[in-house]
Structure formats: structure tokens, C-alpha cells
């Protein structure tokens, strides 16, 4: 049995407290009116003038004043959204890790994989965050639909009344149906998570394979549900932030980001636990396999990222290309930087099979991959909600700290609930003897 080290527990609480304070600060420091924003913009403008950057605005005073007004109003909405978006990105990021871990776990059961059995309890612990994260996200959506924030602009009746495109989508993009769908997905995922956990615990002391067979069947059923619900979830929760934009690949692209983060997290938690001496049956072949998956899915993510980007760039159809125009113009560094973090770096580091057995290589690459995929989600969400006002500052960092603290707390608490070896699994001996 695992005992939650008090150090780690303190650390997670510290993260949560500091994160909470930061998030609160983020909410308190948003401008309270458009006027504030104007003053703010003026100040930064003056600062620019002091450094002598651009000084050609005397020529057309009237037009400039007008555009300043609309600009300030946009900036005001964006800045109001900023702490919300920061929190949303963090909540979604950790939630997606646990959801994709669940999918990976189900795939291992359904494919009767022999090697990862010794890692099942680690995966189950990571999916322990799923109910918590899903409920938090749902609360977030309820708050959004109560107009506490303006992330989903199609929830705003004023916007919709002036926008024929969104009106045409109202059959799908409306608050009650959106929340209902969210309830269905979340309920389905939690149901499988709790049921599979119950079955593996029961299998530990069982004399036959009954529970295992049930687990096998329910995993296959879950994967079908997941295939559909994950796509729809990505349309609902992320793609609808840009309600004018659409891409058929989007659901699978989000999935690629999810799965690679999830496998990375499994590897990191396993290495941590092994370092503490809890997983003596996990050898470096198991880690090698996880690292191969990190490597493979990083390339898979890049494949989908590139496919989506290249096809839209190539055809250059205005209604689609705006999505990448805004990202390319205003988010150049994160947008291109994440390709380096998510592709170039893992490609070069994890190519060598010896490196894939060295813990600190996996840990370093893993952290880079996780940062890269945080930025991926960031670049999916932020341009729609905060536009050019983005900045990775106190709100963003403390949101991550808050949710990370919660994630660590929940995951490691779940680890203490069950023995770390799923000993009743029919493939356990194969897994224990696994050597690659």
C-alpha cells in the first residue's frame, strides 16, 4: 500500500493555496470599466511613445479616436475574460489528462495487453481525478451559462441576435442542450471509471476471471462511447469558443493532445513512485514502452496538427483561415513554439532506445511535453476569448498551480486506497516478467 508522503501533501496544499490567491488576484485585478481600459491603453501607448516607436497618429485624429473606443471595448471584454480563460485552460488541461488516461487504460484492457498490468493502479489513480475535474468543469459551464463570463459568446443573446451564422447553429449551440450533452459525456466517463475500478479491485481476490471478462467487455463498450463523446466534447467545449470556425479533424486533434499528455503523466507518476520504492515490479522495460508511446503519440499529434494547419493554409478559404491568421499574427511564439516542444524535442530526445530507459530523460522530456500541450490548449482557447490581450502571467500560472495542487492531492490520495499491484489480472505474470 502506498502512503501519501506528508511532504507531497504539504506541497499540493501549498500549490493550491498559492494558486487560489493568484487566481483571486487575477479576478480582482481585471479592469472594472471600459474607461479603466482606456487609461491603461493610454499609459502603455505613452510608454511606447517615450521609447519613440511609432509617431504618425496626428494625421487622422477622428478615425483614431473612434477605433480607440472600439479597441478599448474589445480589450475590456478580453481582459475581463482573462482570469476565466486561464482557469478554464488549466481545468481542461488536467481533466483531459485523466480522461485520456482512462481511454488508454480501456485500450490496454480491450487489447489484452500483457505489459502494462503492473501500471494499472497508477492509471486508475490518475483517473481518480476524472470525477473531480469533470464536476469542476461542469460548474464552470454552468457559471458561463449564467453569464458570469463571456468565454462562449454564443451564450450571449445580444451577440446571437446580431449574428446570423450563430443563429443558424442555435439548434446545436444552445445552453440547455450544451449542458445536457456535458452531463451525458461526464456521466458516461465517470460511470466507466467507477465501474472498472470496482471490477479490478474485485478481481484482486477473485478465484476466476469473471470480473476480468466484464472489465474487457465494458472497456470495449466505453471505447465506442469515448470515440463519439470525445469528438463531440471537443466541438462543444473548445471549438464552439470560435463559433464561426469549424474543422472536421478537430476532435481527433484534441484527442492526440490528450493522449500524449496522459501517457506522459503515467510515466512521470510511475517514475516518482518507483523512485520512492513503491513499484518494485515495474522495470525499465515498462518505462521504455511508455516512452515509446510518448514518442509515437508526439509524432501523431504533429501529424494531425500539421494536417489541419496545412490543409487550411493551402486552400486559404477565408471563413476557415481566420482561425490560423489570428493565431499566427498574435500568438506566433506559442503557436510555433509548441511545435518545437511537442515534436522536435521529443523526436530528438526519445529516438534513442537507451535514452528511453533513463529516468531523467523521460522526466525532462515529459515535463517539456506537458508544457507543450498546455500551450496547445492555451492556443486553442485564448485567441477566441482574450484575443491580443494574452499574457502568461499571474492568472495563468496560478490557475495551473491551483489545479495541479488539486490534481496531485486527488491522484495520490486515490493511490493510497488500493494495493499498487492489480494481482488478480490474468496477464499479471506476463507483465511482471515483461522484458523488452
Amino acid at each position: 500500500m502506498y502512503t501519501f508522503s506528508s511532504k507531497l501533501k504539504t506541497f499540493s496544499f501549498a500549490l493550491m493555496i498559492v494558486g487560489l490567491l493568484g487566481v483571486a488576484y487575477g479576478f480582482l485585478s481585471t479592469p472594472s470599466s471600459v474607461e479603466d481600459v482606456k487609461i491603461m491603453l493610454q499609459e502603455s501607448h505613452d510608454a511606447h511613445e517615450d521609447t519613440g516607436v511609432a509617431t504618425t497618429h496626428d494625421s487622422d485624429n477622428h478615425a483614431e479616436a473612434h477605433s480607440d473606443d472600439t479597441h478599448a471595448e474589445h480589450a475590456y471584454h478580453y481582459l475581463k475574460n482573462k482570469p476565466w480563460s486561464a482557469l478554464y485552460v488549466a481545468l481542461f488541461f488536467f481533466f483531459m489528462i485523466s480522461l485520456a488516461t482512462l481511454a488508454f487504460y480501456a485500450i490496454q484492457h480491450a487489447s489484452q495487453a500483457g505489459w502494462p498490468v503492473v501500471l494499472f493502479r497508477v492509471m486508475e489513480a490518475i483517473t481518480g481525478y476524472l470525477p473531480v475535474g469533470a464536476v469542476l468543469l461542469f460548474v464552470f459551464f454552468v457559471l458561463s451559462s449564467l453569464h458570469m463570463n463571456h468565454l462562449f459568446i454564443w451564450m450571449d443573446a445580444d451577440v446571437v441576435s446580431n449574428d446570423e451564422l450563430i443563429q443558424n447553429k442555435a439548434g446545436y449551440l444552445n445552453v440547455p442542450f450544451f449542458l445536457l450533452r456535458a452531463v451525458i459525456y461526464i456521466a458516461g466517463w465517470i460511470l466507466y471509471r467507477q465501474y472498472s475500478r470496482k471490477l479490478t479491485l474485485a478481481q484482486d481476490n477473485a478465484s476466476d476471471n469473471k470480473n476480468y471478462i466484464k472489465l474487457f467487455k465494458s472497456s470495449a463498450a466505453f471505447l465506442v462511447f469515448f470515440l463519439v463523446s470525445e469528438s463531440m466534447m471537443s466541438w462543444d467545449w473548445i471549438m464552439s469558443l470560435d463559433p464561426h470556425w469549424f474543422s472536421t479533424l478537430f476532435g481527433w486533434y484534441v484527442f492526440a493532445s490528450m493522449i500524449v499528455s496522459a501517457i506522459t503523466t503515467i510515466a512521470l507518476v510511475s517514475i516518482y513512485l518507483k523512485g520512492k520504492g513503491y513499484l518494485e515490479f515495474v522495470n525499465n522495460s515498462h518505462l521504455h514502452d511508455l516512452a515509446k508511446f510518448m514518442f509515437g503519440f508526439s509524432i501523431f499529434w504533429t501529424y494531425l496538427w500539421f494536417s489541419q494547419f496545412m490543409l487550411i493554409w493551402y486552400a486559404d478559404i477565408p471563413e476557415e483561415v481566420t482561425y490560423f491568421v489570428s493565431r499566427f499574427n498574435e500568438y506566433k511564439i506559442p503557436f510555433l513554439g509548441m511545435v518545437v516542444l511537442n515534436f522536435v524535442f521529443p523526436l530528438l530526445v526519445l529516438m534513442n532506445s537507451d535514452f528511453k530507459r533513463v529516468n531523467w530523460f523521460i522526466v525532462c522530456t515529459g515535463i517539456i511535453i506537458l508544457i507543450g500541450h498546455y500551450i496547445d490548449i492555451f492556443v486553442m482557447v485564448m485567441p477566441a476569448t482574450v484575443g491580443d490581450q494574452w499574457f502568461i502571467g499571474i492568472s495563468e500560472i496560478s490557475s495551473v498551480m491551483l489545479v495541479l495542487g488539486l490534481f496531485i492531492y486527488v491522484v495520490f490520495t486515490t493511490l493510497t486506497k488500493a494495493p499498487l499491484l492489480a494481482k488478480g489480472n490474468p496477464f499479471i505474470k506476463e507483465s511482471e516478467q515483461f522484458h523488452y
Partner: protein
Amino acid sequence: MSSHYEAPIRRPLIVGNKSYHDITVEVAAPVEGKANKLWWTVFTIALLAFLWGVGSIMYTIGTGIGVWGLNKTVGWAWDITNFVWWVGIGHAGTLISAVLLLFRQKWRMGINRSAEAMTIFSVVQAGLFPVIHMGRVWNAHFVLPIPNQFGTLWTNFNSPLLWDVFAISTYLSVSLVFWWTGLLPDFAMLRDRAVKPFQKKIYSLLSFGWTGRAKDWQRFEEVSLVLAGLATPLVLSVHTIVSFDFATSVIPGWHTTIFPPYFVAGAVFSGFAMVNTLLIIMRKVSNLEAYITKQHIELMNIVIMITGSIVGCAYITELFIAWYSGVEYEQYAFLNRATGPYWWAYLLMMSCNVFSPQFMWSKKLRQSITFSFIISIVVNIGMWFERFVIIVTSLHRDYLPSSWTMFSPTFVDIGIYVGTIGFFFVLFLLYARTFPVIAQAEVKSILKASGESYKLFRDAGGKNPAPAKIVKSVKPTKEIIKNTSEQKNVLLGSLGAFDKATQTADDLKLISGVGPKLEGILNNIGIYSFDQVSKMTDKEYDLLDSLLDSFKGRAKRDDWAGQAKNLKK
């Protein structure tokens, strides 16, 4: 690689009580024996179809593309449909040998050789279309960036059609190398067994002097792994690039971002279906049921089911996004597919691709060989229509209603397609008689871990893999000869008795289809010589069948009498 231990829950991949030698003999049998009438019949049909196709191609090139059913609006139809269809089919081979290798799926070993052969032969068919659909075939070399006398005249690297050139040619070459590398130990086996000098010479050339030293094997494994690692992204990128031909365009119904992974999923889907079709026949006619087991068929059905579901999910995604996009052209493209003049093609594609694989959720159905065979053909019909629907329905009605039109193929379109099918089977039939159709070296590597007799022995308490002979005592899998001495006597009466004291027994194993086991059974009955076998007629075949349990109908099918007559000379 992972250890030899295997969980008892896993089912055996080699059924029956096989030894290493049995594997060698049974894999070599089709190559060492003679082709029977059935083979010649099928080969002739395939050859005729191929020649018909050659005629159609020559007619096209000689007369012009106008002999096809294309028109000014629909500039791509059967040509590119067939191209994508054949490329798609080709993907399963690489998938089975490369992706399943990366995922350490042992069941790939029984099927990978034939699947790769299928890849190569179908990529060859696919490769014909980009060339013959050109208006000026003789200028085809202009697609290559070769320095020339036109100064700086160069290819434009922005076109997916040029990427196709690189994708397909790389794919064919890498697959060929991957396949050939795997063949080396097997060719060496055939070389070492060959008795006739000509065969010896040929297989010596083909096997590149493989001697199977430890160092060779070590490098062989490494090369396989590296090639598998390269072939996997290749397989994804090749069909992705094929999908770019459509997805980079601005045509409603073509321009969609899901095409790259969705085409790949469709390729795996149709490719596995084709492997299933071919292997279900091959295991029967080449007597390889012990290596291509029901479990192999079932697992392929599961892959078909999964990829079929992914394809179905993509269809629904496309439909949803078409509505969601609010782009009326896009919406109309899908409305036209479902309710336009080609509704029947759309319906056929939907029912074959989305519904038929869902039957595989039933264990009973996916374990039925007849059902799998039917579904595997249905899937390939559906996947042909998928490409047809994507290409033709998007083209024949797009932005300007004044350019709306219809498409119908001419006999030349059809003739070329039939010709490629013929060519494919010509190649595949020749392959099945000259190549070791099962990677015997690989299959031998899993015999002790996944062979039925070894598994039974372990389950019965044996700790280490035991030699096959001891295993017999654990579970007698020996052919039981029915105690029907009367029938035996009738049979021997018409074939003539064999006196062991005065006559020497022939090596009945030389008859194609007779292995060591069957030879033993025949000897038990009292059949020892070619002379006896050559006297067999339908009556004797039936008698023999009534004495056998699991080799029914084989003697007649393989024409033992005819073979024995030849061997007698």
C-alpha cells in the same frame, strides 16, 4: 523481445501438434509441389482479364483519354477511384508487418508475408493509374525534378499530385525492401531443400547467401525493427498525401481536414478486408489452416470492426460539420450525396462500410469463416464506392449550377479496372506458387510460446517447452483412423495391395498436399506407392474421405492421382 512466458488465457496461434520440421514442410509444400487444375483455371482467367486490361490501356493511350467516360466537369472518376482503392488495399500489408510488429502482435506472423505481397501487388496496380490517366503519357518523366535542356524548367513542389509521385514510389520501394529482407531466411530454407538444380539456382540467387548466423539474425531483427519504425509513418503519410489530392482543393465535399486520418483508417479497413478475402482462400487451398487459424481471421475481423467504426465516426463528423459550418455549398454537397442522382452509390457505401462491420461485434459471426469472407468482400465493394462517391459526387455538382453534369463510365474505364484486378491476381497466384507464403522463420520463433501442443503441455504441468513427441501423450491429437476395415479393404481392393517385403515405398510427401502426417495415415491404410495413388478415381477419393477425419476432399482437390501419375514416370 518479451519473454517466452505467455498467459494461459491466450489462445494458441499454431494449432495441432507441430514441430519445426512440420512448419518447414508445410510452408514449402505449395512451392515444391505442382499446380493443380484449379490453379491453372484461375490463373488463366486472371491472365485473360489482365490482357483485356492491357488492351484497354493501349487503346486509351493510342486514341486519347476521351475514350473514357470523363467530361469537362468530372475530370477524375474511375481512374482516381481505382488508384485510391488500390493504394488503400495496399496499406494493410505494411500495417500488419510494421505496426503489428511495433505492437508486438505475434499473430501477425502467420499472415504478414502474404499481406506484404498483397501490398506490393496492389501498389503496382495503383501505380498504373497516375500514369495512364495522363493526357500525354510519354511526358510522364516531366514530373521528376531532373536537370534538363529547358534551362530552369522544374517541377512545382506545391502540388499534392507531385507529392503522390514521391509518396507512392517511396512506399513501393520501402515495402519491397522490407518484404524481401523478411524473405531471405525463407528463401534460404527453400534453397536448402531444393532437389532440382534449376530451383536450387533460383533460390540461391534470391536468398542472397543467407546462412543464418547469430550476427546475421541480430542485424536482421534490428533492420526489421528500424524498417517497421520507418514504414509506420510512411504508411500514414502515403495515404495522407493521397487524401491531400482532394483535401487541399476548394471543392465542397473535398476540402475537409479530417481526410488525412480518415483515409488512413479507410485504407486499413479495406486492406484488412482484402487480406481476409485472400487468406481465407489461401489457408484452404495451401493447407495452412494450422498457421492461419480461426483466431487470425477473428482478429482481422476485429481490426475491420474498429477501423470501420472509425470510418463511420468520420462520416458522421463530416455530416455534422457540413451542417454546422453553415456553408451552403458544403451542405448541398452532402445533400446531393444522400438524395442526388448518385444516392444509390452513397447508400451502398454507407451500408457496406458503416453497417456491415458492426456485425463483427457478435462473436459467433466474427468466428464464422463464411461470414467473414462475405463481409470482407462487401467491405471492399463499399470502400470502392466510398472513393467513387467522394470523387464523383463532389465534382459533378459544385459551385456553378451551369456546369452540373453526370458521369458514366465507358467499357474502357471498366476494362482497365478489370485488367488491374486480373494483373493483381496473376501476380498473387504466381507468388502463391513460388514464394514461401508464411514467414516460417518467424512462425518458428513463436512455436514454443504459442503453439497449441506446447501450451497444452504447459497447462498439464510441464514447466519447460517440451519436444513435440512427448506432448502427444498429454493430448492425443493424432489423426484417428476409423475402425472400418471393410472400407479399407474395398479401397485397397481397387488400388492394389502393397507388399512391403518385395516393393519399396515411394515418398508420398512429394505429392503436393501430402505432409508427413498424412503420409503416415496413408501408410496405415496400406497405401505406399505412387502406383496405388495414381489409380484413384472419384470412388476411391470418397472412400478415402470416409476414412479420414480432417483432410476431407483434399485428395480430389489436389488431384493426387494425376500428380502420382506424373511422379511415377
